[in-house]
């Protein structure tokens, strides 16, 4: 066997674990999921073909539409809010002041608490009678709402809880900020520009690829929120926190409607995919990539 053929064989052997995983745990399940969505499937008996019936039912399922609205509202508020806040925190973390390492740790610490543990903690903080939040509000003379038990406040509660972990994407911004060449800032100084000019003409344009990356990641994560509403509210009160994935879970694993749940999965997938494509299309209008090809 000649050298080239040998390298080809070796190449495929090295990536073989991933190739097997790709077929067994990704491509196969995606195809199967689409097939299930066209069937009635209760797990104990083989799937029965029903065509588009699941999707037709979806169109008239009020709870599904409610869950779409809940999830979209959550994403539309918490993703931009998180982006802006973590960017500001990253700017703060990038300041050259003494002891900044300590503060970086303080800001990152909430991300190290396992999701279930932090969800339990916030469940306790939001407790209307004995929780920290309403205790603090009472001290300044405000009677706090029932938070997670209130139809109006349950979703905002989840958004507040999510903001607690802004430190995670801050780390990504920070790495980006430290990669900005200092001569760009010097150029602004030469032109007589101050801190605001530096931020507007150098920092933000240079950071747009990182902002875009965080936007896409935040979007995908936001549409898949599951554990928080499951543990804190079970989707209530009156479906105020019924996220799509939670509704999918209930259909699949409480009612064993695997076909219908698969249709929900695909509906959500299409929404995420469409949004991602639109954002990528729009990205060349605002995301700034340096005109070099060094990364290829």
């Amino acid at each position, binding site marked *: 066997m000649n050298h080239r053929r*040998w*390298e*080809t064989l*070796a*190449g*495929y*052997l*090295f990536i073989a674990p*991933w*190739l*097997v*995983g*790709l077929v*067994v*745990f*990704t491509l196969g*399940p*995606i195809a*199967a999921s689409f097939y*299930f969505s066209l069937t009635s499937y209760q797990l104990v008996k083989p799937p029965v073909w029903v065509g588009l019936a699941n999707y037709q039912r979806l169109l008239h399922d009020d709870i599904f539409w409610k869950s779409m609205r809940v999830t979209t509202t959550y994403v539309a508020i918490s993703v931009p809010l998180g982006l802006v806040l973590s960017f500001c925190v990253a700017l*703060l973390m990038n*300041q050259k*002041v*003494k002891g*900044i390492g300590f*503060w970086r*740790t*303080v800001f*990152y*610490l*909430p991300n*190290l*608490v*396992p*999701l*279930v*543990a932090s969800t*339990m*903690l916030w*469940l*306790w*903080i939001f407790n209307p009678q*004995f929780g920290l939040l309403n*205790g603090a509000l009472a001290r300044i003379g405000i009677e706090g709402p029932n938070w997670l038990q209130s139809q109006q406040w349950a979703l905002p509660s989840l958004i507040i809880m999510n903001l*607690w972990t802004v430190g995670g994407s801050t*780390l990504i911004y*920070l*790495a980006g900020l*430290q*990669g*900005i060449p200092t001569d760009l800032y010097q150029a602004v100084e030469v032109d007589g520009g101050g801190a605001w000019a530096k931020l507007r003409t150098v920092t933000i344009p*240079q950071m747009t*690829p*990182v902002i875009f990356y965080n936007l896409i990641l935040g979007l995908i994560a936001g549409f*898949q929120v599951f*554990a928080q509403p499951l543990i804190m509210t079970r989707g209530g009160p009156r479906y105020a926190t019924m996220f799509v994935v939670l509704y*999918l879970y209930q259909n699949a694993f409480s009612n064993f409607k695997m076909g219908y749940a698969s249709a929900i*999965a695909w509906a959500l997938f299409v929404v995420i995919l469409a949004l991602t494509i639109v954002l990528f299309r729009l990205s060349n209008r605002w995301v700034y990539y340096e005109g070099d*090809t060094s990364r*290829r």
Partner: protein
Amino acid sequence: MQGAMRSEPNAALDGPAPATTTTLATAREPLGTHLRRTWWIYLILVAVGAMLSLPLLWLLSSSLKSEGQIFVVPPQWIPNPVQWANYPDVFHRIPFGRGWLNSIVVTSLATLGQVISASLVAFGFARLRFPGRDALFMVLIATVMIPYHVTLIPSYVLFRWLGWLDTFLPLIVPSWLGGSAFLIFLVRQFYMRLSFELDDAARVDGASIWQVFTHIVLPQSKPAIGVVAIFAFLNHWNDFFGPFIYLNSTDKYTLPLMLRLFQSVESTEWAMLMAASVMTAIPCIVLYFVAQRYFIQGVVFTGLKG
């Protein structure tokens, strides 16, 4: 292709080490001048830092209260008396020791698999040339964006068919078969930065591809392997969804599932729950302090730094 790679991987990695740059920039300035220039930054740092750490302090404080003190209005910050017994009591109330054992088994086996498979697969993508490689790499990138809920139901059906429900296998085996596409991508980016000269020289001297991998590329890649190990550890230690879907019996529960045992329809044992939460979080926090610099490096490796 190789010519455009960064020739000094170490320079690129040491660049953003935050502590050193900060101290260098401010070392020569007298403390008074420094404070006069930066007091407002400290003000914001303290305000935001306090807001973010209060929940954690509340977690600690609640974990040391008796069930009676938990329900005092207005809430008290300092437990009196300090109820240290909550921590050992967690182990009596629920099979928490078993939870530790389960979490350690699942996390270590899955992390080991992730490290091995990511370093192998990344080597194929970064250092070998074969037809279809670039197309397959695009597929790898695309899979990072596939939401887990799309593959959830068929995966469950598959594991059920294999008889793997209520075992650790669904939580471990996928990591041995590539696992996280993002982590493969991360190692590949790191490998791409290493010089090809040593590889070529070794190949001329008759070394096999496997020897190049084990003797030349792997020994240079400890930072990348470290990052993968840390990320994989945190992912699996904190994972709630996988264990929640695949494990039924309490004696197989990992720690995140164990926490839910304190929650029932009638009441929640808050003090116990908070003590158990602290203990679940401790390995992650310890890992952060031990391996702090890897956290930033992980981000840098992906080439995202601008």
